[in-house]
């Protein structure tokens, strides 16, 4: 450090040492702001990414549904769009709902890079076992494709997808569903479709996704068996797509919809409401945290202003000795920055401590079957952003009185003292 800079820093430190209590209060203000900013950001982004991993990663990134975004036009509407005569009462053709003949569509999807696709057929069935009847959703899957797009097999606590092939009619039950039926692996249930078709199925596995509503109402069987049970041969009602790059979901969904025609919904579109809530929540919390930092900046402004007022004689004499305005500005700006810098360092420690504390709290959320720690993420960017915001606020809070101090006319002060 050069002599002049060391001198300026020395003068600034002397000023600060002269007002220890007020300086400490200002530093505590910055520390609180930075600490809470980090903790809030860690908690918010933690819960957000936890939501994404729990809900969105557990479900497909793009779902191709057996419906169209806009209903197809009737031939007469297509041919005579602007006709003067309107035909009323044209009844659409009564078609069985579903994605027919999914094979070529799956082949087309397989040809797209970074994409894994799996068809399913979902229907409502009634499961009976030992006098108990439970309505549930039965999902027909192709195990080989399904394991590439969902975590169902990973979440299995007993059996595996391959066990579906080991018996005539295998079925995998959600943990909660098995408990409701008092069934276990090896139990043989009767499965009845809404059309009255019934088959006997043997429980070959149990799934515990951690999401209570899912586990209490979902079961899985081979796609072909479900198509037979629901009397919808060669039809699926969803194609689930998983992407190598989850952020591309919206674009990929658009491309698939253009190519296949069926409504393709990205996870962002499917969860748009939740993501909007996250965005609003982030704005609210960051506004509160920003408010804390602004209050802390006012503390710094107050103390630097007080020092400049008290040290008016020193400023005058330093200027009469030959100090430049920029030297005087640097003295007081450094004081603000020092308080901001120390507050930031302490705030980082407090923020880290709060994150550890919050991360250790176990909570029981009704929607999830297991108690979970508060989701907190440790992201260096949070520390850098909070620190940069605090130091910027401190710089502004220091600069304004510093500029005023630098402009003081030494003659006015010396005359005032004389």
């Amino acid at each position, binding site marked *: 450090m050069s002599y002049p800079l060391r001198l300026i820093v020395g003068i600034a430190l002397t000023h600060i040492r002269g007002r220890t209590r007020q300086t400490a209060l200002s530093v505590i203000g910055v520390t609180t702001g930075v600490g809470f900013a980090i903790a809030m950001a860690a908690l918010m982004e933690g819960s957000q990414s936890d939501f994404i991993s729990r809900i969105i990663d557990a479900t497909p990134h793009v779902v191709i549904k057996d419906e169209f975004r806009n209903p197809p036009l009737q031939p007469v509407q297509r041919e005579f769009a602007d006709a003067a005569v309107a035909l009323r009462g044209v009844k659409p053709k009564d078609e069985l709902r579903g994605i027919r003949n999914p094979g070529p569509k799956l082949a087309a999807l397989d040809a797209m890079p970074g994409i894994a696709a799996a068809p399913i057929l979902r229907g409502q069935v009634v499961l009976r076992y030992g006098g108990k009847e439970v309505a549930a959703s039965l999902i027909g899957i192709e195990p080989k494709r399904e394991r590439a797009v969902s975590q169902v097999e990973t979440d299995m606590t007993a059996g595996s997808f391959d066990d579906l092939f080991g018996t005539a009619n295998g079925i995998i039950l959600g943990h909660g569903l098995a408990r409701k039926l008092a069934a276990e692996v090896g139990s043989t249930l009767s499965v009845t479709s809404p059309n009255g078709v019934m088959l006997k199925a043997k429980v070959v596995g149990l799934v515990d996704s951690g999401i209570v509503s899912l586990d209490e109402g979902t079961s899985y069987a081979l796609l072909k068996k479900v198509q037979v049970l629901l009397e919808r041969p060669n039809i699926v009602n969803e194609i689930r797509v998983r992407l190598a790059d989850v952020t591309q979901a919206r674009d990929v969904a658009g491309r698939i919809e253009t190519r296949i025609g069926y409504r393709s919904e990205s996870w962002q579109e499917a969860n748009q409401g939740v993501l909007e809530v996250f965005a609003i929540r982030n704005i609210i919390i960051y506004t509160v945290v920003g408010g804390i930092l602004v209050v802390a900046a006012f503390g710094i402004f107050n103390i630097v202003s007080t020092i400049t007022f008290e040290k008016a004689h020193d400023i005058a004499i330093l200027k009469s000795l*030959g100090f430049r305005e920029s030297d005087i500005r640097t003295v007081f700006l450094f004081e603000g920055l020092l308080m901001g810098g120390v507050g930031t360092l302490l705030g980082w420690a407090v923020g880290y401590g709060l994150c550890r504390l919050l991360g250790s709290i176990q909570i029981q959320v009704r929607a999830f079957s297991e108690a979970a720690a508060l989701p907190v993420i440790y992201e260096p960017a949070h520390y850098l952003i909070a620190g940069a915001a605090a130091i910027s606020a401190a710089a502004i809070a220091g600069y304004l009185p510093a500029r005023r101090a630098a402009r003081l006319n030494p003659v006015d002060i010396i005359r005032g003292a004389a």
Partner: protein
Amino acid sequence: MPVPVPVRAIVAEKVSRVLPGAVATTLVEGVDLAIGGGEFVAITGPSGSGKSSLLYLLGLLDRPTSGRIVLQGQDTAALDRDQAAAFRLARLGFVFQFHFLLPEFTVAENVLIPLRRLGGRTRAEMRERAEGILASLGIAALRHRRPDQLSGGERQRAAIARALANDPPILLADEPTGNLDSRNADLVFAVLARLAREEHRTVVAVTHDLALAARADRRVALMDGRIVEDSGAPSR
């Protein structure tokens, strides 16, 4: 080729300073003054006569409304604020009625402040220079004391030591004995006289005290911002 030593350290030509306002106030009006190198000049006059205002103009702490001030051959009108500050740091020393020592720093640290701001010397050289000045003013033993541990005379001598830190050829003193008893006032004035006569610095001191002023080489009396009497440059 040797650098010519300016014969006249300070030249003021028709210098005026008027404070603007609803009713303009004239502090200094049409002052013509030439002070030679090594002269010890006392500026006298009643309160409000413009003595201090003239000193602040000569010290570049204020700017004249009209007229020209040349210091050490440098026309100061051409200097911007930073250049004026640099000129003060290297070539002007100030002593005020109040010592204005920085209270948190020791005497030695106060003397080191302008030395460190100017730079160009090693730390040891700066310390040696500061201790030399303090010794020449008889306050070397007080170097580790803070201003509040000094008497009035000691504080003023410490302020003179700080003003001399960068070896300025011009020393400007504004009522340097105004807060001192007669013994300390004599002592401080003797120091100023010695700086002019032995070290050949140009010393301009504003004072009310005519008895002390009589000990200067030259006396300039002001009234209502104008020079009303000038005893003239000494013959030496």
